[in-house]
Each structure stands twice: as C-alpha cells, then as structure tokens.
C-alpha cells in the first residue's frame, strides 16, 4: 500500500510540475495582456515536435535548449501578426482568436509530422530506474522535476531582478500607469508573450520525452492548466504554482482510492474553491472579475 501511495505521490508531483510549467506561461499572458491563450496547448505540442526534428542533429540536450527558444520565437511572431491587434478590443475577441489559432497550429503539426504518435528519443542514462527498489522512478522523472524547478526559479528571478521582469510585474498591477511612465507597453506584452510561449515549449519537450508526441497532446493539458490558474487565483503566479501542484497531487492520490474519479477530482477542487474563496487561493480581489 505504501509503495502504491508513494508511486502515485511522485506521479502526482511530476504531473503537477507539468501543469505548473504550462499554467505559469498561460498565467503570465493572462495577467499582463488579459488574453487566455487557447492555443497554449498547441504551442506545447509544437515545442515537442521541434525537439523531435532537432534531436537527430543536436541531440536531446541541444533540443532541450533550442526548441523552447524556437517556440518563443513562434509565439512572438504570432503575437505580432494576430494577437496584438485585438488587445484594444473586448477580451472576448482574444479568446476567439486564439481558439481559431489552436485549430491552425494543431493541423499544421498534423500536416508536417503526421497524425500518428511519435516517440522522442531520450538519453539512455535518463531512462534507467533510480534504484531497483524504486523501479517506478526513472532518472527522467527526477530530471523533469529538476528542470521544472530550475525553470520556475529562473522565471521568478527574471521577474524579480531584471528591468523587464519588474515592468511586467508592475504592468500586471496597473498597465496604464506603467504606460504613462514611458514604458513601451506593446513591446512589453510581446516579450511577455514570448516568455509564456517559451515555458509552453519547454513543457512540450519534457512531455514528449515521457509520453511521446501526437498533434492533439496539448488538449489534455490545457484544461488542468486553466484549473490550476483558477484554483491558485488569477493575478498571482505563486498561486498558479500552488494550484498546479495541488491538483496534480490530488488527482494522483485519488487514483489510489477511486481511479475513475481521478480526472473529475480537479473539477471538484475548483468548484469548492469557487464556492468558498471565489478569487482563488492567492488571487487578488477584483482581478479580472
């Protein structure tokens, strides 16, 4: 029993780490630009596919570095081409736009790389188990958690200590004032969108190493990311971090008791949070409501 619980707990933490990585990117874009990027899951798939194409040339480690950057560039271009034109309009339009965009990106992936699942080769050292006793924990899982920790710490350091990061944080609270102080808000939003896309791409590479690739892999991850944001509270990245881990672990532990309810439990958590604390665990009062 203990081993089952242990297994599901580590599983939950790993899945939660995924949700966190993806939700943080989404959350950043929502906070600064008030855009829910529906195509975020498809950006994730794109990052994974970039890694698939790059691995034969520059190896897994190279792909891990390069494909998130490519995804960020892609996100930047898309923002410039489409999304920045709807900032001034009602928020409904950005939602609609990214929904259509998700269709397009998903079908491009299907067109280029084919509809059938593809594996992403990972280095041998990562595919071996930790110890014979802990056979269910491969080094890849440990590695994923480490990458997530590094990426999240990096993100928080970036927001805390760099000038752009400081402006993003300020813009989240009051964009008009930041603009009045002479910051180029349009450029700021573009950088922010690129950083969000980078996180999606990174999550995509990691996910591809674990579960392989298929064109609609992002669809399964986008809903939990939304819920992580709602549970954690819109406007707070720490909240998103907490929310992601919470629902990941809760879903995994439910698997021990009642496997069929594991997907439903995260929605139950969301409903409870909305009832008892509508702004989310760490959300700002009045943010987007």
């Amino acid at each position: 029993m203990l081993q089952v619980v242990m297994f599901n707990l580590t599983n939950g933490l790993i899945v939660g780490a995924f949700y966190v990585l993806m939700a943080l990117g989404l959350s950043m874009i929502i906070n600064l630009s008030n855009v829910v990027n529906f195509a975020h899951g498809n950006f994730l798939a794109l990052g994974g596919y970039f890694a698939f194409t790059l691995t034969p040339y520059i190896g897994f480690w190279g792909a891990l570095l390069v494909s998130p950057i490519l995804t960020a560039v892609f996100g930047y271009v898309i923002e410039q081409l489409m999304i920045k034109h709807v900032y001034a309009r009602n928020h409904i339009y950005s939602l609609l736009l990214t929904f259509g965009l998700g269709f397009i990106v998903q079908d491009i992936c299907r067109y280029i790389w084919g509809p059938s699942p593809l594996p992403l080769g990972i280095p041998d050292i990562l595919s071996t188990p930790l110890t014979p006793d802990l056979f269910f924990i491969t080094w890849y899982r440990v590695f994923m958690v480490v990458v997530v920790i590094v990426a999240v710490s990096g993100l928080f350091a970036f927001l805390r200590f760099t000038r752009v990061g400081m402006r993003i944080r300020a813009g989240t609270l009051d964009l008009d004032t930041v603009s009045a102080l002479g910051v180029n808000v349009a450029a700021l939003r573009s950088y922010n969108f690129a950083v969000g896309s980078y996180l999606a791409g990174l999550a995509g590479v990691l996910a591809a190493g674990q579960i392989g690739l298929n064109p609609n892999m992002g669809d399964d991850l986008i809903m939990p990311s939304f819920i992580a944001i709602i549970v954690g509270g819109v406007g707070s990245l720490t909240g998103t971090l907490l929310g992601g881990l919470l629902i990941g672990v809760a879903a995994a532990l439910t698997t021990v008791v009642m496997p069929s309810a594991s997907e439903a439990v995260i929605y139950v958590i969301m409903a409870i949070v909305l009832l008892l604390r509508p702004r989310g665990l760490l959300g700002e009062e009045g943010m987007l409501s």
Partner: protein
Amino acid sequence: MNGLTVNKYATTAIIWILLLTAPFWLPLLGGYTALAGRVLVFALAAMSFNMLLGFTGVMSFGHAAYFGLGAYGCGLFLKFVAASTPLAILAGTLLGGVAGTLFGLLLVRRRGVYFAMVTIAFGQVCFYIAYKWDDFTGGYDGLRGFVRAPLDFGLFKIDITNNANAFYFFIVTIFGLAAAAQAFILRSPFGRTMLAIRENERRARFLGLPIERHIWLSFSISCFFTALAGSLYALLNNFADPLGLNYIMSGNIVMITVMGGMRSFWGPLVGAVLFVMLQDYVSSMTTNWMFFVGLTFVCVVLFFPRGLMGMLQKGART
C-alpha cells in the same frame, strides 16, 4: 415604416421561405434533408448562445455542456422511461436547463475572461461524467439504443421516425417556436435590460438593475434553449455523443455565432449554414479541414468582427 424595418421583415420572410422549402431545393444542390436538420439544430444552439454573448455581452465557453446534457436527457428518457418524443424533448431541455441554472449561481460574480474559463471547466465536468459513467451513458461509445418515436396526436399520427421530410418539418416547427420565444424575450423589458448590461454594466447598475440576477436569468434562459437544441440533436442522430459535451463543441457553437454575426438575431443561422457547409465540403476534400475552419475563423475575428450578417447590414445601410 422606414427602410430598415422593411428590410428586417424582408429578411425574416426570405429566411422562412428558404427554411420551409428546404426539402425541395436542397437535393437539387446535392444536399440531403438531414443536413438541413443539422443546420437548424446548430443554428438553434448558437442563437440560444447568442442571447448571452450577443445580447447580454457575457462570454460562455461551456455551452456544449447544456447542449450535450439536453441530448443525453432526451436519449436516456427514450431508452429507459417511455417512447414519447415530446416528453423526451421536455426531459432533455429540463436536464440541461436546470444544470445550467445551478452552475449559473456559481458563475454570476465572475466576469470577462474569468467567466469564460469557469464555464469551460464546468462543461468539462459534464463531459467527464458522460465519458466515465459507462453503464448509464455508454461512455466513450456514446448513448445508443433509442429511436425517436412517431408523434401521436390521438386522431392521427405523424411518422417522424422513417419519413425524413416529416422529421425536418418537425424540427422547423420547434425551431420556429423557439426563435419566436427568443425574439419575444429580447423585445420584452427584460430583454432591454440585457442590452443595457451589454452596453454599460456600471451604468445599468447605477440605474438600479440587479445585474447579477439578470445575468443569471439570461444564462439560465440561454441554457434551456441550448438544451432544447441538444434534445433535437439526439433525435436527429438517434445517438448522443460524449464529444457533444466537450469544449471543442462549445467552441463550434461560438464559431458559428461569431462567423454569422453576434449582434444580429439571425446571424447564428447564417453562421450554421456556413459552418455545416465548411465541415461537410472541406472535410470531404481534405483531411486538414481544421486548418481551413480555423483560418476562416481567425480572418472573421480579425477583419469582420460583426460576422457575415454584420457585413450585409453595413452594406444595406450605406
């Protein structure tokens, strides 16, 4: 009577003439009657959704839930309770409508993007229930094993089970009644308050309108009508599909509405024609239909945010 009102009556007349004669001209264009039925069902769902998006200014991205609940309610009633089409429609409409009313209570204080996200999440709850509850809902395979029953008026019977045209006129009748009811609601004083909330929520609040209650009511009404469309969808296919509850379906309803024109009463109907045509023709030519549907939609959002009807109306005015 000014030109615009004449125009309005002319539009309505043309739409009804086309709808009532569809079984006669559609086969000439290479279509079939069930296709027209599908257009009407999607149009009804999208028009119901548009009461919320276009006329109250609130974005729900989870209307598939109420559409799908309507379908399941209708199917389950036919399968397990009684073989009566009108009662099954009533059961489906009630199931979806009541669920929407209850969810609405949790939603009304949220706004904007937040509202949309929470509606999606609630929609997915319904999807997972239908998907996982194998014994009752048929799980992944969907709910099968029911057929629409003939309409029995005591004196005479109408066979909508096998006669495709009779069933089409049945759908047209219900569509007409629902559209009339929606038009009536939108013209009522309550409907005017919905427009007021859309145009300026803060000012409407200052005027003393109970905003939360009105949004809740509007959401609830919209869900009842959407569930009605869902019931018809189950009857049309003799099948209820869990994917009909998925957020992709919600997205389809939104796309239909926006492509047709969300500020126009008949816009969603035009959008449904366009969407069903796109889906039917493009998917028969290429497997990459998602790309073309997505691209069309993105272009509409970027360049014609008022949709096709918005474009036509603008053209008529100048």
